[in-house]
C-alpha cells in the first residue's frame, strides 16, 4: 500500500489538487450554476472522449496519429443529419452505394479469376489501370445520371439549412420529385454492378497473390447481403421512403445514430486498408497523408452539403415544451418529453446535458468491456505493447489493425452525429474537437483508455468552468478585484494544464512509463 502510494505520489497529489480546485470552484458560484456547469462539462467531456478514445486506440495499436479524426467526426454528423432530415435521400443513395461496394467484397472470386489470365509482362502492367479507368468512367456516367432526391446548396429555399429549419417548424419541405429520366433503371443497376466488379478485379491484379483462396459459399454472403440491400431499396424505394418519413423522429434519430456509426466504421476500414496500410514503415508520412485526407474530407463535405452552417432539430423526446415544462420530476419529463428539466433550480437541457453524457458513459463501458473481456480486446491490449510478438503468435494483426481503425472512426462518427443537434453542423466542427481530444489525451496518457476518459473529463470541466467564470467573474481573495477570464483564456487554460501536467508527468496522468 505504502509502495503504491509512493509510486503514484505525483498522480495522487495532482488528483487531490484537481479536487481542491474543483471544490473551490463550486464555492464561488450558486448551486444551480454549479450543477449546470458540471453537466455541461460532462457533455463536452463526453464528446471529446468519443473522439479521443478512438484516436488513442488507433495511436496505441497502429502508431498512426490520425489527424483526419476531426474531419471524420464532422462527416459522421453530416451523414447522420442526412438520414434524419432527408430520409428520402438516404433511401435513394442506398442502392448505388450498396451495388458499388458489392463488387469489392468478392475478392476471392477476383483472385481466382486473375489466375486464369495469361501471364504477360506488358499486359499485366497496363491492364489493371485500364480496368480501373473503365470502371471509374462507367461509375461516373451512371452516378451523374442516377436520380437521387437531394438538396440544392445554390438555391436558398432548397438548401440543407432550409430543410432543417422547416422540419424544426413542423412544416417539412417537400423535396422535388426525381425519376429515371436520364437513364434506364435496369441499365443503371447493371452499370453500377459492372463498374464495381471491374474496379475490384483491376485492384486485385495489382497485388501478387501467393496462394489462391478457396471459393466457398461463405465468400459470397457479404455480396449477397449488399445486393439484397441494393435491389431491395431499389424495388421498394417509395415504400421505404414513406415508411421512414412516417416514423416518429425518435426512431429516425436512432437510425441516424446507427447509420453514422456504421458508415464511420466502413469509412475507417476503407481508409486503413487502402491508404494507411502502405505507410506503416514510414510513420512520419502518415501525418502528411492524414492531413491531406482531412483537407479532402472537408472539401467533399463542402461540395455536397455546402459551406453555410445549419442546425439539426432535436428529436421529439427531447424537445417538448408548453404546459408542464420545464419538468421537475422524471415522471413529468417522461410524460411531456420536456426539452428542459429543473435540477436544483437550474434549467438543464435534457439532450445536451443529460443525454450526451449518458451516451458517453455507455460507450465508455461498452468499449471497456470489449477491451477487457473479449479476445479482440486482449489482442489489442497486447498489440499496444508489442505488435511484433502478437504477430509471432500467429495472430493476423493486420485484420486487427483494420478493425481497430474502423472502430475508432466509428466512435468519432458517433460523436459527430451526437454533437450535431447541440452544436449544429459546420465544416469546422471537427477541428476544435480534435484539438480538445489531443489535449485530453496528452493529459490522460496517450495510449491509455482510462486516461482518455479522465483527460476528456478534465478538459470538459475546465473549459465549462472557465466559460462560466467568464460570465460571473472570480473574486480574487483579500482584494476587491473581480477577474473575468476572457474568451481566449478558455483554450489557453486547457493548453496550460496540458503543459504543466506533461512537465510533471511526461506520460500523462495514467500513461504507462516506458
Amino acid at each position, binding site marked *: 500500500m505504502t509502495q503504491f502510494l509512493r509510486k503514484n505520489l505525483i498522480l495522487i497529489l495532482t488528483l487531490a489538487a484537481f479536487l481542491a480546485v474543483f471544490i473551490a470552484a463550486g464555492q464561488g458560484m450558486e448551486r444551480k450554476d454549479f450543477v449546470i456547469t458540471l453537466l455541461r462539462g460532462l457533455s463536452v467531456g463526453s464528446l471529446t472522449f468519443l473522439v479521443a478514445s478512438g484516436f488513442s486506440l488507433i495511436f496505441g495499436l497502429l502508431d498512426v496519429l490520425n489527424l483526419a479524426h476531426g474531419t471524420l467526426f464532422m462527416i459522421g454528423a453530416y451523414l447522420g443529419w442526412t438520414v434524419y432530415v432527408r430520409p428520402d435521400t438516404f433511401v435513394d443513395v442506398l442502392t448505388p452505394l450498396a451495388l458499388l461496394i458489392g463488387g469489392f467484397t468478392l475478392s476471392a472470386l477476383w483472385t481466382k479469376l486473375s489466375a486464369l489470365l495469361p501471364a504477360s509482362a506488358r499486359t499485366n502492367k497496363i491492364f489493371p489501370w485500364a480496368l480501373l479507368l473503365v470502371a471509374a468512367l462507367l461509375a461516373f456516367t451512371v452516378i451523374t445520371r442516377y436520380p437521387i432526391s437531394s438538396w440544392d446548396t445554390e438555391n436558398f429555399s432548397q438548401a440543407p439549412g432550409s430543410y432543417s429549419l422547416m422540419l424544426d417548424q413542423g412544416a417539412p419541405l417537400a423535396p422535388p420529385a426525381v425519376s429515371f429520366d436520364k437513364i434506364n433503371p435496369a441499365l443503371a443497376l447493371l452499370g453500377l454492378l459492372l463498374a464495381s466488379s471491374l474496379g475490384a478485379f483491376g485492384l486485385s491484379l495489382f497485388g501478387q497473390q*501467393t496462394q489462391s483462396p478457396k471459393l466457398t459459399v461463405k465468400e459470397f454472403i457479404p455480396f449477397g447481403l449488399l445486393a439484397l440491400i441494393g435491389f431491395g431499396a431499389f424495388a421498394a424505394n417509395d415504400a421505404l421512403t414513406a415508411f421512414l418519413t412516417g416514423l416518429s423522429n425518435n426512431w429516425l434519430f436512432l437510425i441516424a445514430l446507427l447509420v453514422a456509426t456504421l458508415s464511420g466504421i466502413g469509412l475507417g476500414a476503407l481508409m486503413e486498408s487502402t491508404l494507411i496500410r502502405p505507410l506503416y514503415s514510414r510513420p512520419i508520412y502518415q501525418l502528411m497523408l492524414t492531413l491531406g485526407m482531412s483537407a479532402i474530407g472537408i472539401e467533399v463535405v463542402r461540395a455536397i452539403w455546402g459551406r453555410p452552417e445549419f442546425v439539426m432539430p432535436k428529436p421529439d423526446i427531447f424537445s417538448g415544451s408548453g404546459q408542464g415544462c420545464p419538468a421537475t420530476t422524471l415522471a413529468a419529463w417522461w410524460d411531456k418529453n420536456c426539452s428542459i428539466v429543473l435540477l436544483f433550480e437550474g434549467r438543464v437541457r435534457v439532450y445536451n446535458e443529460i443525454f450526451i453524457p449518458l451516451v458517453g458513459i455507455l460507450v465508455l463501458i461498452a468499449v471497456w468491456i470489449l477491451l477487457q473481456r473479449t*479476445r479482440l480486446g*486482449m*489482442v489489442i*491490449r*497486447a498489440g*499496444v*505493447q*508489442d505488435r*511484433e*510478438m*502478437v*504477430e*509471432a*503468435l*500467429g*495472430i*493476423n*494483426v*493486420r485484420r486487427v489493425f483494420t478493425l481497430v481503425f474502423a472502430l475508432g472512426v466509428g466512435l468519432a462518427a458517433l460523436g459527430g452525429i451526437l454533437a450535431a443537434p447541440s452544436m449544429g453542423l459546420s465544416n469546422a466542427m471537427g477541428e476544435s474537437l480534435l484539438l480538445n481530444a489531443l489535449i485530453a489525451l496528452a493529459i490522460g496518457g496517450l495510449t491509455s483508455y482510462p486516461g482518455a476518459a479522465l483527460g476528456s473529463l478534465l478538459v470538459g470541466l475546465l473549459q465549462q468552468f472557465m466559460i462560466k467564470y467568464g460570465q460571473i467573474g472570480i473574486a480574487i481573495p483579500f482584494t476587491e478585484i473581480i477577474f473575468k477570464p476572457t474568451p481566449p483564456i478558455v483554450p489557453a487554460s486547457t493548453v496550460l494544464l496540458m503543459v504543466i501536467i506533461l512537465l510533471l508527468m511526461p506520460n500523462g496522468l495514467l500513461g*504507462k512509463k516506458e
Partner: protein
Amino acid sequence: MDYILDVQSIHTFIGQYHILQGVDVQVPRGSITALLGRNGAGKTTTLKSILGLTPPREGKVTFDGRELNGMRSFDIAALGIGFVPEHRAIFRDLSVEENLKIAERRKGDLDRKREMIFSLFPDLKRLIGLPGTSLSGGQQQMLAIARALVPDNRLLLIDEPSEGLAPVIIEHMMDAIRQLSKESTVVLVEQNFLVASQLAETYVIIEEGRSVTSGKMSDLKQDKATIHRYLGAA
C-alpha cells in the same frame, strides 16, 4: 537426413544495413539445435528472418517441406512455429492466464495443454491470476516458454533462455527445454556455451552475418580451437 527446417543462404537487411549475408541452418526433426556466436553476429536476426519478422531479401526458408518466402509472419507462425523472444515479451497489461490464452490458435488449446504446462512449470499455477508485470525474470521466462507451448507447435525458436537468470533457475529451465523437446523440435540461441553444449545435439556458428560452421555438438565440445576462435574463451 530429415530436416524440419532448412534455411538456405538467406540475406537480410534492416534498413540499409546488410545484417545477414548468407546464413544456412539445417535443423533435424526432433533435435535441439543451438545457434552460437558472439554478440551481434546475427543469431536473433536469423530467428526473426525464419519467422518473417525481418523477411530475408534473398535465399530460401523451408519449413516441413513448405517454402516460407513471401508469407506473412502470422501465417508462418500459424504453421506451427512458436517463438520465445530475447526479452520474453510478456504482455504487461494482460494477466498470466491471458498471456497464455492469447496464444491459442483454436478454442480450447489452453485447456488441453494446461496440465502439461503446469507439470513443466509448477510455479505458474500459483501465479495464474497475477498481472504480467508482477513476475520475476525467471517467472517471465517460464511464462514465455509456456506461451509457445499452448498451440500445437512443431518447432520452437527460443532466444537466450538463460539470459539474466540465476543458476538454479537456469537448471530448471534446461530441464524444461529437454522435456518439451520430446514433443517438438527446438532451435536455441544461446550465449552461455555451457548451457548450449549440455542441451543441444547439433550446432551452427554464426559470425558477422554468415554461418561459418556447423555439425554435432559432441564434436564441437572436443574442438577447442573452433570454440576459442568463434566463441571466445569458453
